[in-house]
């Protein structure tokens, strides 16, 4: 291409100038925003990675918040439970003292008074609340107190005292997500934690010829257990036992009736799914009401809460009945204390798990943020260098153009 037309030099200069100006503008914008990826086309794969990283960072921060909240709540619950343990241990001391026949009836009544005060304190602990006003030990019924008291007269007491403590919270489990698809239990139902004895429900009806007539479900401790038409009582027992609950079912050897017992001390909640009548037909529940108040009058229920144990002990001391004190009451208290200690251990373990997760997120977050910055951040040094080079080239090109474009032959023709 030996022949150069006048237009061509001009056009060439304009073309290259435009290219340079575009590059300079692009760099300026990137430097202004400190971003390497200004448009998706600058680095599509990098942008895709950056987008995923950013979402992950947001999630990690949310999980950290969750961990902090749950840990705070569980620690508060822990302090209350520790007080409860101290109280029940003091009651036990008094029980051991009272079992000793050397004390007079008057002395025993004084001890009963002390236990009465401790009982009131224990009920206060059971109904304790978190700073935001929700009750700690009521499962998911966090706007109502879990333990309802009935007062009345008891033989030997000088005034009205608490005669019965019912658990009116729920057994439902609540969870919080503390890591990708990883959950931790946050609910502390009083019907499990503040329970002392294994609960047992003895049905009274003979179940040898029992058969499920149509597909139905049972709800035990809130979990649904589906039954199929044609299941006999052994199948029902097997399905309950395989459900992974802290409940065991078996047949009473004498009466051939269904017996449900807890394997970890807690209040059993049983009901039929709407439309079914299996438990009703087996004589365990009436068809009305909701657990735990739906148990049939025929069924024999045993096993009580810590409150039941303390009330039993106190009433015995009021009456002055040494025999009652030494036997069942003490055993019940021991069970209650060991259950409380188990809960405390579990809380401790959960606290440890939460701390571990928090530490891990603490470590992970800066790493993720670092990766994100690497992916999207601009390397200022090289950007400035490039801008300087472009400026320099630009100046040189303009100067050269100014020298060669203007002169034509016209300037020299006379």
């Amino acid at each position: 291409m030996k022949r150069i037309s006048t237009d061509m030099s001009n056009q060439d200069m304009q073309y290259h100038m435009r290219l340079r100006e575009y590059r300079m503008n692009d760099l300026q914008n990137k430097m202004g925003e400190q971003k390497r990826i200004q448009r998706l086309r600058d680095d599509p794969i990098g942008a895709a990675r950056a987008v995923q990283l950013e979402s992950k960072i947001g999630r990690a921060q949310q999980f950290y918040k969750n961990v902090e909240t749950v840990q705070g709540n569980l620690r508060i619950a822990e302090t209350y439970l520790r007080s409860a343990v101290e109280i029940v241990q003091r009651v036990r001391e008094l029980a051991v003292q009272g079992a000793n026949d050397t004390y007079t009836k008057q002395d025993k009544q004084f001890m009963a008074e002390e236990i009465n005060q401790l009982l009131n304190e224990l009920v206060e602990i059971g109904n304790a609340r978190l700073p935001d006003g929700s009750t700690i030990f009521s499962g998911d019924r966090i706007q109502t107190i879990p333990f309802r008291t009935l007062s009345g007269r008891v033989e030997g007491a000088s005034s009205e005292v608490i005669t019965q403590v019912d658990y009116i919270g729920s057994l439902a489990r609540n969870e919080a997500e503390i890591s990708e698809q990883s959950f931790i239990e946050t609910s502390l139902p009083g019907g499990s934690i503040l329970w002392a004895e294994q609960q047992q429900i003895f049905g009274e009806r003979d179940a040898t010829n029992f058969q499920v007539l149509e597909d139905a479900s049972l709800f035990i401790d809130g979990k649904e257990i589906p039954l199929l038409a044609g299941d006999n009582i052994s199948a029902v027992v097997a399905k309950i036992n395989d459900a992974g609950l802290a409940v065991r079912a078996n047949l009473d050897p004498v009466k051939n009736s269904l017996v449900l017992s807890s394997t970890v001390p807690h209040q059993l909640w049983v009901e039929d799914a709407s439309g079914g009548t299996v438990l009703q037909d087996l004589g365990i529940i009436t068809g009305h009401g909701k657990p735990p108040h739906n148990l049939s009058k025929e069924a024999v229920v045993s096993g009580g809460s810590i409150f039941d144990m303390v009330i039993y002990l106190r009433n015995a001391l009021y009456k002055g009945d040494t025999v009652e004190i030494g036997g069942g009451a003490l055993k019940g208290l021991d069970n209650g204390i060991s259950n409380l200690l188990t809960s405390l251990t579990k809380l401790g373990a959960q606290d440890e798990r939460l701390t571990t997760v928090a530490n891990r997120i603490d470590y992970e977050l800066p790493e993720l943020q670092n990766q994100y910055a690497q992916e999207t951040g601009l390397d200022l040094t090289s950007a400035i260098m490039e801008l300087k080079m472009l400026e320099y080239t630009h100046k040189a090109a303009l100067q050269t153009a100014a020298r060669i474009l203007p002169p034509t032959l016209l300037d020299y023709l006379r």
Partner: protein
Amino acid sequence: MQSTFSSLEAGKRSLLAHTQGMATLGHNLSNASTEGYSRQRVELKPTDPLYIPGLNRANTPGQIGQGVDVQSISRVRDELLESRIVSRANGQGYWEARDKYILMLEQVHNEPSENSVRTLLDKFWESWQELSLYPAEISHRKAVLERGNALMEGIHGRYNSLSEIREMAELEIQVTVERVNRLTSDIASLNEQIVKVKAMGDNPNDLLDRRDLLVKELSGLVNITVDTRDGDEYTIHTEGLHLVQGKVVTPLGLEIDINNDGFSKIIWQNRNEEADIKGGRLGALVQLRDGDIREEIQNLDLMSVHLIDLVNEIHTKGYGLNGETGQPFFVEYPFVVNRLGNYDGDGDGAFDSTYIFRVNGVNTLNPEDHLGIAGTMRIPGKTGLIEIPYYPTDTVKDVINRINNSGAEVGARLNTEGKLSLKATPSFQKENPDFVIRHLEDSGEFLAGYAGVLASSGEEGSFSWNEPDAILSFRGGEQSFQVAPLAHPSGWIEVNKTLLNNPAALAAGFGINGRPANAGDGNAALAIAGVRNQEVMIGFSKTFDQYFADSVASVGLKGETAARALETENLILKDLEDLRQSISGVNIDEELAQMIKFQHGYAAASRFITEVNKMLDTIINRMGV
């Protein structure tokens, strides 16, 4: 015997020729910066000399030259180079249009930044997490609703931007078609004039230049080939059909296409057939409007549809603080109000199709179970049906993955109850509606008895959308299927007004055994927050995170390709242009030098005439006096 005044003739001819030369030169100088101008040269040739062999030949030594004549005024240009430029201009037009629009699509994504739809969605999921920790709070419910509203605005905003871009493409198509028609009619009239001028033996240089310029512009708009084999008929073809033939033009026209959201399709006006323009600006615009931009909108719709479906599936089962249940979180507008999905597609008054978006199986499946049965499923793909086989040793998860990886326009997953859930995706072809399952068939028992989707196997038990009451082929009842949503869910997606008016109705817990959830029950909120991480199969992406990453990457890659291709085309075209300039461009210095030559020639000719005049003067005035 030569004439006395013949030298004067020669001188006169020289003057005229040199004047012609100057005139052409002046023309060149004036047009030095005109676009598409090729420098013209005066071809001088000596006049026919005397004497040609014949009977009336004078008996003098010959041949005697008679001076100079202008043979022709012709353009200096390379025809082959011109046709190369025409074909490359096509590529440049295509990529220029594509680059511009894809840049707009990239900007709509607004990534990576804190103001994109993705970040709004992240904040939405976070608000559900917070609610799961504090399920009794009204303030947290309000936060969920606020974040939900912000997300709706984000999605609507993006949908509107994309629709606007599509409208812009449509307008540009209309304008470009008009321009094409104008260009072709201009070229045709030029053809007519050029033929007339050529018939006189002249070179219509400027007309030819103008025509070449128009042809180059036209080739940027549509892909054309020029045919100059027949000297009288200058023909331009596109896609094998005539666009211009001599002075006859086949104009393009526009017709509204109801299958395509009311946008127009390009037709040949006199033949009423669709014109399939593939290249050039027009081809790029059509591809963008019906391909890339439409896909972006479909992508957004896909996300919206899944968001609605997944959140509502959980929320309707949950209970609010006020004990209410069954409230959807997002409003659902079905395509047809008919509960069975029946629809009258051709407007003849009778139902002829069934529009179903999702169908669930009846049986609870375990993903790790081996099937123990074999068969082949036939499921709609991009074009036609895809056959998906399954074998006795496959697990349920294997079959689901096979369906999802097969490129079928149906996505499969196991929902929260463990049942097989089949959902339709947007359709590739414009004629098929988005989010409608078109066909389900299974030669074996997987879809029929095993998962409980179809009532029976084989062809008789298959589900097809182009018959009314097709839902009778399903095994489950009305609860198992969902009517297709109204077109473009991302345009109408909204939070349920009932919840906005009464935040206490927002569900956070599931409750037990049909009893309303207690105040502290946050399991439903937790389940909804968990939707974010689960493999919910949005089209081909497994989770929401992957969906966003995939869409960002795909648009970014398109943009990268377009930018590179445009740069390449620009460079190639520039090189060709430079070559053309080198051959046909005006160099002012050269012209000025030529001008000196002609000046001298003119001066010499006048001098010659003066001298001859003096000689004649001697004869006329002074001989024999």
